[in-house]
């Protein structure tokens, strides 16, 4: 293991651990990733008993900067509402770890990294990774950090899938788990939206069959379109209506053209452009594919309950009423399986009109739920409010 430069980022150096070829990541698809760099960020301090570590799992296009300032975007971290001193994921009490997923583009090995066998970027030759592969890489990281048992694994959307996979793969290493706005399998509708995004990327002439890096171009238009369509799925009709309605942008009448007359068009174009600044197109292909392949029950003979059989982990499942990408019925399926497995499980459906993105926003009931769940789990774990072990 050694410290290394980030794979595809420019001008910043994340905390990174590199696992050398003697410790390859063998993927579900039969691939081998070595060396493997895992970029991560930590918040708070690990206590002497090493019992207060929480792993935060980021969503599809998130990264390791859950809180504080993201050095690439200059914006606050994706879970700023939840992570910090006095917040539910209290940095005074817990040691928070957040890593960039394998296949990502913020310092963890992904398609933009150099393929050691060719000396060129992997591109689409990168092994197709799964949620379980992402979790394997995270497990290697927490081993490296000296954490045997995680006090909690938490995350939303694709992060929630990782939470479920953690609880299934390493039940003895997960004291509590919060799968949020997620599903135990990607639905046909979810796969369909992802396919639209991938096709948009691949239809861009600058994609160059995934070899755009070597040719000095980037399929920005395709990736921006992918982001625009995905972004719609993260919102709700009510939120879009409230925010934009049919309001026009900087004009009083339609131009009868294909300019961005409507504010919502302008908003989506901005979202698309901002996204290509920070994300790699090939990474988008790989992380969406990882979600699509996710079907936890399939790994346990088709029974989701078997994935959680005899688990000691305490679960808190959360869904949001207006989330149509990962609707409450998906969370209920998880809860039923946990019940059948005899797990300790709480389930809350938070009333919100903010859609799938609600878990990233300031939702008071969600914050209260998370705080209540973590506080009681911390009591059960013997964690004092200052993070020391009682």
């Amino acid at each position, binding site marked *: 293991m050694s410290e290394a430069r980030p794979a595809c980022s420019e001008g910043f150096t994340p905390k990174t651990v590199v696992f050398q070829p003697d410790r390859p990541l063998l993927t579900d698809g039969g691939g081998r990733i070595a060396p493997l760099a895992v970029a991560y960020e930590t918040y708070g301090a690990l206590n002497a008993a090493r019992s207060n570590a929480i792993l935060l799992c980021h969503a599809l296009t998130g990264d390791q900067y859950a809180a504080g300032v993201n050095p690439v975007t200059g914006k606050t971290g994706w879970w700023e509402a939840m992570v910090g001193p006095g917040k539910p994921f209290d940095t005074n009490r817990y040691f928070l770890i957040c890593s960039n997923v394998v296949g990502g583009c913020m310092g963890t090995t992904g398609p933009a990294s150099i393929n050691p066998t060719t000396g060129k970027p992997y591109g689409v030759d990168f092994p197709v990774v799964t949620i379980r592969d992402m979790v394997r890489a995270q497990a290697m990281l927490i081993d490296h950090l000296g954490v045997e048992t995680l006090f909690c694994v938490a995350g939303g959307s694709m992060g929630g899938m990782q939470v479920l996979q953690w609880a299934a793969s390493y039940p003895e290493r997960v004291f509590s788990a919060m799968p949020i706005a997620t599903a135990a399998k990607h639905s046909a509708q979810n796969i369909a939206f992802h396919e639209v995004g991938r096709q948009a990327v691949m239809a861009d002439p600058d994609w160059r069959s995934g070899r755009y890096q070597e040719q000095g171009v980037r399929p920005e238009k395709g990736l921006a379109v992918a982001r625009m369509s995905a972004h719609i799925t993260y919102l709700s009709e009510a939120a879009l209506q409230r925010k934009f309605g049919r309001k026009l942008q900087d004009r009083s009448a339609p131009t009868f053209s294909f300019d961005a007359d409507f504010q919502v068009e302008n908003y989506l174009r901005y979202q698309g452009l901002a996204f290509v600044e920070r994300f790699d197109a090939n990474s988008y292909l790989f992380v969406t594919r990882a979600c699509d392949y996710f079907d936890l029950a399939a790994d346990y003979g088709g029974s989701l309950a078997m994935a959680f059989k005899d688990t000691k982990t305490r679960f808190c*499942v959360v869904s949001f009423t207006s989330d149509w990408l990962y609707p409450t019925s998906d969370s209920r399926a998880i809860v039923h399986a946990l019940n059948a497995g005899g797990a300790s499980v709480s389930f809350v459906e938070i009333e919100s009109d903010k859609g799938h993105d609600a878990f990233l926003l300031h939702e008071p009931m969600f914050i209260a739920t998370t705080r209540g769940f973590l506080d009681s789990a911390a009591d059960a774990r013997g964690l004092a409010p200052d993070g020391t072990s009682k």
Partner: protein
Amino acid sequence: MNVTSAANAPERPAQPLDQPRLDLAVIAEMVAPGARVLDVGCGDGALLKLLAQKKGVDGRGVELSQRGVNECVAKGLSVIQGDADTDLSDYPDDGFDYVILSQTLQATRRPRAALANMLRIGRRAIISFPNFGYWRVRAQLAFSGRMPVTGRLDYHWHDTPNIHLCTIRDFVEIVDELGAHIERGVAFDRAGAPIRFSAPWWVWNFFGEQAVFLLERGDRRR
């Protein structure tokens, strides 16, 4: 019909009545320390909290109302949103030591199925319910000719969630049908005092405003 096994009911609940609802204190007294408990229709989690504090139980809850569930989880209780009529079938056999249904039986669509599920999920079940055989209830219907509205049944006929009301006598009969045993039973009068345990069952049925029963699964499960 046999209610003599109810004779070992305590004269007074062993725990101080520091809870607003009498039946909760009585239920808590019936649960063995450290047991695994499923509270169906757990409301804001008052009973689960009481059981955790006084008996050290490993408690779980099911609650229909979102508000109740949210309050419970914020208190650190393991509670899921669910419906006693539909969601109990998801629970495996013998998952719990006790399954509790407090003041909810009369609001279920299929009370018999709910009871059967409870006795499947847990070897023991505790049920509290308002007694429709209570003399004031009978008197209101008999003399005013109108649907009774009392302290325990404080809804009008058109807006009540209580769709399957029963009397203590009816309840004892369905327990018998399900092949379960009544391990203990307590009926309370309007003042919250338990009916004398030596009283015959019809006295319970007539003077009890509400009842709490501890059932044990029998061998004659149907």
